[in-house]
Structures are given as structure tokens and as C-alpha cells.
């Protein structure tokens, strides 16, 4: 009984996604009524200049956001795990983890208010666009990166670092020559996760984007609100396949190095 429900649960996880992908090969022009097999929607998709432009913006936003988030996340995770107690640790700890549970709509809205106020007081950023999206995405992605790298640092045997320090190595040298190589798979995984999270955001971007900086998820979102078309199913299929491969690769990297360290 329990097994049967559990098994059905796995089917439940995949059926909607599989059907979504199947309908991208529908010959009809409605996303939900099956007419026949066709690949024409993929060709229609590649002629949609607006979508290609939005995809380009999304890629750039995701690249910069993931890079900033990873840079900040590595430092934050290191400071939080390698210092037992310091002033403001509770505050920083709270700030690092709370974006994980914050409703996106509130994150987006508060970012908008921040940008309006900043523009008023210091004149920067002058208007909303790619810069403001990147600032907002870096902030919420940083929380996820920190969590991943932190758990790796906690697992890591700190006697390695202590040994290097005892032998007279400068802390900075220890960080770059001992710590960084050990946590590098977690850094790669964190970056990839941040990249996919940024690429998936359709809510925060509603508040932080300006004219001419519409991202791909924002485009998908406004289309899905009106109804679904096979063209968007084709787009969704491509995204699922590409991101799926990236995720599996990241997980493989994480697992292989974990196994290596267990030996």
C-alpha cells in the first residue's frame, strides 16, 4: 500500500513534465488538443526574434548574478564556518539564510523600493534594467550558494588548514592553496545552481526590470498567463533538457569528489 503510493508519487512527479514536452511536438496550434506529430514549432521558435533577445538578456543576467553570488557566497560561508563567535554573527547568519524563506513577491517589492530610494538619494541606478535585475538576483542567489558551500566547509576536515597554518603558512595562502581546492566542486555546483535560479525567476524581475530588459521567464510568464501555445512548449522543452543536463553534471561532480574524500 505504502509502496504503491510511493511509486505513484514518482510517476506524478514526471507525468506533467513529460506531457508538457510531448505537446511541443503537436501539429495543431493549441497546446492541449493533440492533432498529430510535428516539429514545426521548433522552427517557429527559432524565428521569434523577441524571444531570442530575451533569452540573450537572461543568459547575461544569470551569468553575472551567479558569478557575483558565488564570490560573495564563498566569503560569507568561510567567515561563518571558520570563526566561532564574533560580533554580529547572529545578524549575518540570519541575513544569509532568510532569503531562502522570503516570499519572492516581498523580495521583489522591497528591491523596487530600495532602487527608487537609491535613485532619489544618490542618483544610482538611474533607471531599472539589467543592472538592477543583477543586483536583486545576486542577493537571493547568494543565500543558496552560501548554504551549499557552508555544508561542504563543515564536512571538510579542518586539520588540513590547521596543519598548513602550523607550518607557518599565511592565512590567505592557506585559503587559496588548501581550502579553495577542496571546496571547488561545491563552488562549481553553487554557481550552476545560482545560474539556474536566476534563469528561472519570473517574479522578482517583474519589479526590477525596466523597458527593454525583459528576461525570458518574464516573457514566458506573461504568455502563460494568457494561455499556452505549442511554441512555448517547445521553448520549455529546450530549457528543461539543457538545465537538466547541467544539473545532472553538477550532481555528478559533487558526488564524485565526495566519494573521493571518503576513501
Amino acid at each position, binding site marked *: 500500500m505504502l509502496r504503491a503510493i510511493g511509486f505513484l508519487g*514518482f510517476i506524478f512527479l514526471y507525468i506533467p513534465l513529460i506531457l*508538457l514536452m510531448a505537446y511541443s511536438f503537436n501539429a495543431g496550434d493549441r497546446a*492541449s488538443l493533440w492533432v498529430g506529430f510535428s516539429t514545426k514549432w521548433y522552427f517557429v521558435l527559432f524565428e521569434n526574434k523577441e524571444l531570442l533577445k530575451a533569452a540573450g538578456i537572461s543568459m547575461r543576467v544569470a551569468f553575472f548574478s551567479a558569478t557575483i553570488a558565488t564570490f560573495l557566497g564563498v566569503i560569507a560561508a568561510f567567515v561563518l564556518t571558520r570563526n566561532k563567535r564574533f560580533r554580529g554573527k547572529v545578524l549575518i547568519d540570519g*541575513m544569509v539564510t532568510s532569503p531562502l524563506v522570503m*516570499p519572492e513577491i516581498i523580495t521583489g517589492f522591497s528591491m523596487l523600493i530600495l532602487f527608487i530610494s537609491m535613485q532619489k538619494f544618490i542618483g544610482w541606478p538611474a533607471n531599472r534594467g539589467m543592472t538592477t535585475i543583477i543586483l536583486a538576483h545576486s542577493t537571493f542567489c547568494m543565500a543558496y550558494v552560501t548554504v551549499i558551500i557552508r555544508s561542504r566547509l563543515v564536512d571538510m576536515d579542518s586539520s588540513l588548514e590547521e596543519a598548513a597554518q602550523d607550518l607557518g603558512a599565511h592565512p*590567505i595562502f592557506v585559503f587559496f592553496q588548501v581550502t579553495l581546492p577542496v571546496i571547488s566542486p561545491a563552488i562549481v555546483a553553487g554557481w550552476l545552481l545560482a545560474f539556474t535560479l536566476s534563469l528561472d525567476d519570473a517574479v522578482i524581475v517583474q519589479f526590477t526590470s525596466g523597458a527593454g530588459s525583459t528576461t525570458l521567464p518574464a516573457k514566458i510568464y506573461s504568455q502563460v498567463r494568457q494561455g499556452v501555445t505549442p511554441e512555448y512548449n517547445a521553448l520549455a522543452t529546450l530549457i528543461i533538457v539543457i538545465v537538466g543536463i547541467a544539473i545532472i553534471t553538477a550532481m555528478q561532480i559533487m558526488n564524485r569528489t565526495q566519494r573521493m574524500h571518503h576513501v
Partner: protein
Amino acid sequence: MINRIASFVGVRGVIALPMIWLLVFFLLPFIFVFVLSFSTIRNGMPPYEPVVNFKDSFLQLNIHLSSWERFFENPIYIGTFLSSAKTAFIATFLTLLIGFPMAYVIARAPEARRHLLLMLVILPFWTSFLLRVYAIKTILYNQGPVNQFLMKIGILEVNSPIQFLNTDFAVYLGIVYTYLPFMILPLYANLVKLEESVLEASSDLGAKPFWTFWQVVIPLSYPGIIAGCMLVFIPAVGEFVIPDLLGATDTKMIGKTIYVEYFNNRDYPMASVLSVVVLIVFVAPFLMMRKWQDKLAEVNDA
């Protein structure tokens, strides 16, 4: 010497960077939102009266309580909070009903297969939230696969589909579908520690499998159940995408109301009031409970 001082300051600066970033881009925005909740709407850009004003080199505070008064006087706002909590509660319970058996199956699977099953749970979770909601929308259309299937096997009469889309059912299904991994992972972490010998002891003492499950397995997995339910309930209660894409136009969910106040009504102060209340009522207790759990874990470790 000078080099050493320079590198010391440099290191300090780099270490301080994420903290400064979070103060500016995470804490400061919430302080601004809190302040903005004491403002009032006006025509113009931005569409609200400034609360803090510099005039003739004096700092002026213009505090309006009108948004807060409207929040407490208009039953629609409180009602939306209650109905969000109800929706999130029901959806969380449904997620538990499906997630628990799945976590149990994974935890009881041979060790070699566990990794694969966990990966199967996590994979759609990281793929794309938006596209998973889209997938649910695709299958629920009146001419969509679910209705077609029900008509084919004769549960529904031909050409009389059920209206699934834009109903509460679709919202529940959307939440269960997208948040299932949040439920399964903490449950799994808990169930995998359950010793086979405990179950054997129970059955040796004559308990039927169902009784063992109800009286032994479930009580032992309370920490996992609580963690999983919190991880589903908290984001679900503030959910915007799911009620917006799958629910009826008059679905009362707080995330959607914040969006409507911001986008349709351009009432930023009201959106701020609602955000502040969500943070106080739903997010803050969760963070405090986590702190408390961490403390408890520290005490247990010592």
C-alpha cells in the same frame, strides 16, 4: 610592514564585502518597506508621499497611519490572510500524504538505489519552478490530457469535461506538485536513520504492519514531519505564481493581493503594510523556530 598592514586591511575589506552587500541589498530594503507602510498614496512618481524629508536643513517625519487603519478596518485584508493560511495548510497536508510514502520508499530501498531515487526527486525540483507550474496548466485544460483520459476510460461523459483550471483544486495541485521535494528531503533524512531492528521488535511483539507504522514509524519521524511541513507551508502561504496562473481570478492569496496593490492599484504603502504583516506573522516565527532548533542541536551535541 606597510605591506602587511595593507594586506590586513585588504583582507578585512574582502571579508566585510558580503556583509555590506547584505546590509544594503537585503536589510535596508525591508527597513524602507517598513517606513513606507507609514506613507500615503499620491499622484506622481514615486506614487507615495515621502516619510522622511529634508526641509530647510531640518529632518521632517510625515507619518500616516491611514494604510494600517485600512488594513485593520477592511475585512478583506484579514480575510485574505486567513484564506492564504487555509490554502497553504490544506496543500501542506496533501503534500505530506504523498511525500511521506515516497520518502519511506526511498529510505527503505537498497542503498545502491537510494541515490538514484533521491536524484529523481531533486531533478525536477531544480529544473524550473515556472515550467512545472506551466506543466500543470497544460494538463488541466478542458481539452487537456487529464480530461481526455477521464473521458476515454468512461469516468466522464464525452464532451463534458470538468473545469479544473482556475479552481482551488488547481492551486492545491500546483503547490503539492512544486513543493513535494521540500517535504520528501527532510522526511527522508529522518526515516533513513530509522533502525530496521525497531520495526522487527515491534512485529516480533505481535504488532501488525499497519500498527507498527502508526505507532512506531510515525512518532519517530515527527522531527522530519515538522521540518517538511514548515518548508512547504512557509513558501506556499506567500505564493504568487501558482494562484496567479492556476487559481480563479478572485483567489484570495496574500502574495497575489500584494501584487495587485502594487501593480493594479499602485498603492505602494498598502503593499508595504501587507509585506510587513507577512514577515511578522509567517516568516519571523519560522526563523526563530530554526534558531531554537539549532540551539537544541548544540545542546544535544555537547
